[in-house]
């Protein structure tokens, strides 16, 4: 993932979307298979949401996305739904880490000027992000990803990183 481009339609969500809304605990007690769980994506937030998701959609949220439980199915179910990127004003740290570890790109940026259905393009070049709102013809700025985050994303997630390296580096700063 030295370079990565994601194009998709914005799906607007409010502040404080917690992981129980993304996937309910009562669903994951029966299975942790994201392909089975994806039919329940965001059901307690909006019943029927999963049916409206198209491959390539980008979740665009307010602040504190992924708060609450640290459950990782809340990331794998998003990926299984064909979503490759979540943009939010801020993330809960456990969701942010889980996203990176599974190769879901979390983008911290101002999402106020994005409307539901806007066509967005995110270009990630070695951890520097360029974001275009094609519908509104605007640019959105986002901070660069940190070195450890880049290393894990470049490997394709934490599993691939540890398969490749066998261990963490002696110090996290490259």
């Amino acid at each position, binding site marked *: 993932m030295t370079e990565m481009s994601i194009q998709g339609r914005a799906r607007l969500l409010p502040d404080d979307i917690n992981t129980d809304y993304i996937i309910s605990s009562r669903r994951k007690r029966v299975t942790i298979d994201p392909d089975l769980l994806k039919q329940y994506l965001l059901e307690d937030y909006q019943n029927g949401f999963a049916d409206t998701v198209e491959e390539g959609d980008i979740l665009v949220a307010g602040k504190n996305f992924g708060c609450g*439980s640290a459950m990782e199915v809340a990331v794998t179910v998003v990926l299984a739904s064909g979503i490759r990127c979540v943009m939010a004003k801020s993330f809960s740290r456990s969701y942010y880490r889980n996203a990176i570890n599974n190769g879901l790109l979390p983008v911290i940026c101002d999402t106020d000027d994005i409307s539901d259905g806007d066509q967005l393009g995110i270009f990630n070049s070695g951890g520097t992000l360029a974001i275009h709102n094609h519908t509104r013809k605007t640019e959105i700025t986002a901070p660069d990803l940190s070195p450890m985050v880049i290393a894990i994303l470049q490997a394709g997630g934490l599993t691939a990183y540890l398969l490749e390296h066998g261990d963490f580096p002696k110090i996290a700063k490259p």
Partner: protein
Amino acid sequence: MQTPVPGFVSGFGREMTPQPPPGLTISEKILSAHSKGICRAGDSVVCRVDSAMATDGSAPMAIDYFRKMGGKVLREPEKVVFALDHYAPPDNPATVALQDSIRDFTKAQGNVLYEIGAGVGHQLMVEHGHVLPGGLVLGADSHAVAYGSLNAFSTGIGSSDLAAVMLTGKLWLKVPESIHIHLSGKLSVGVDAKDIALELNRRLDSDFTSYKTLEFAGDGVTSLSLEERMVLANMSTEAGAKAGVFEADEKTFAYLRQHSGFEKTDTAVVADPGAIYAATEQIDLSALSPRLALPPRNGAAAEIVEIEKSVGQPVDMVYLGTCTGGRSSDFEKALNVIRQGGAKDPRVQLIITPASDRIFSDLGTSGMLSEFIKFGALVMTPGCGACCGTCGGIPGDGKIVLSAANRNFTGRMGNAKADIYLASPEACAAAALTGVITDPRSILGKAMK
């Protein structure tokens, strides 16, 4: 000794007195001791982990990731703890199969397993000596922050991070800034540690608190029991914090001696006098009144108010339990309220779930259990119970729940059509007596007169 002036050039103009480095917070000190050299807020470091916990909610995925990472044998099995607490007991064959996959793994690997009925993993971690002062302990569950009550640095992680710990014994962490939470005074009758936690959540903006540690200090801390400190550390995640940590004192050491036989006191870590904090928040415990978290509405987060504002709201179900409100002292406080009234409102369903088998046993030997049963309580298996809607009682459509737990998202207790309010064990007990939201002081106050 004279304090060196920063940048001061001595009389002969040859030597520069170095500026003394600022002191370290508890978080910086613990993470420094577990990585290579001194680290400060903002650094990313690879840390040695002292122990790590996963539940039946997170362990099956962690085992999958561990295998996919090439893991064959646990590096340090004695440091890996699995607790079957979320589905205790399970209500369908698929859940049993997930739990069996954990049992099979443990049998092969020799790590620690707490079976169904032993209790909530977080409570077992502190009760059984898996958490020691100055330690770095992680948990694949957001309420792992509770271990900070024993002066450990602890935070919640996902299953893949836990698998990395299982594989390497380490994890990379960003060293957090800390917010100094200064508590003064003592809680009044009818006011609980839960009310402090709710008040903190009301005051702190999750965007500011995110990635930071709440470091609790002040004479108010001394007055709090370990159980009460656990409530504050546990709920620091609800405020958006990465961790919540206390200094160790005589009460901490006594708790460790009693529960796990740990005698040492020299592993404890204190903040340096010159430690740098991102902010300071002060709470006068003596001035605090009971709080209530209202259910989230229209997608907005829960609002926290003084309980007085909702007095009279009818309640259908009361839940006493969880890693926040399911310890012996919580049940004792609830019974103190219940004894003033004597009879439960027949319209209210009261569910109690001890946080661990030891607590369950304490309830039996102290006679509290039979009091609760006489009062009409439903007693559930120790574990997470009704908190996350996976076992132990589901509220009906349109029903109102008052819970001693930590979280009240829509659907949290298994039904998106029920509303969940959060309050202290005393306030929960008061509602079980009256059938409506009630300020517990109005009941305890009468008893005092």
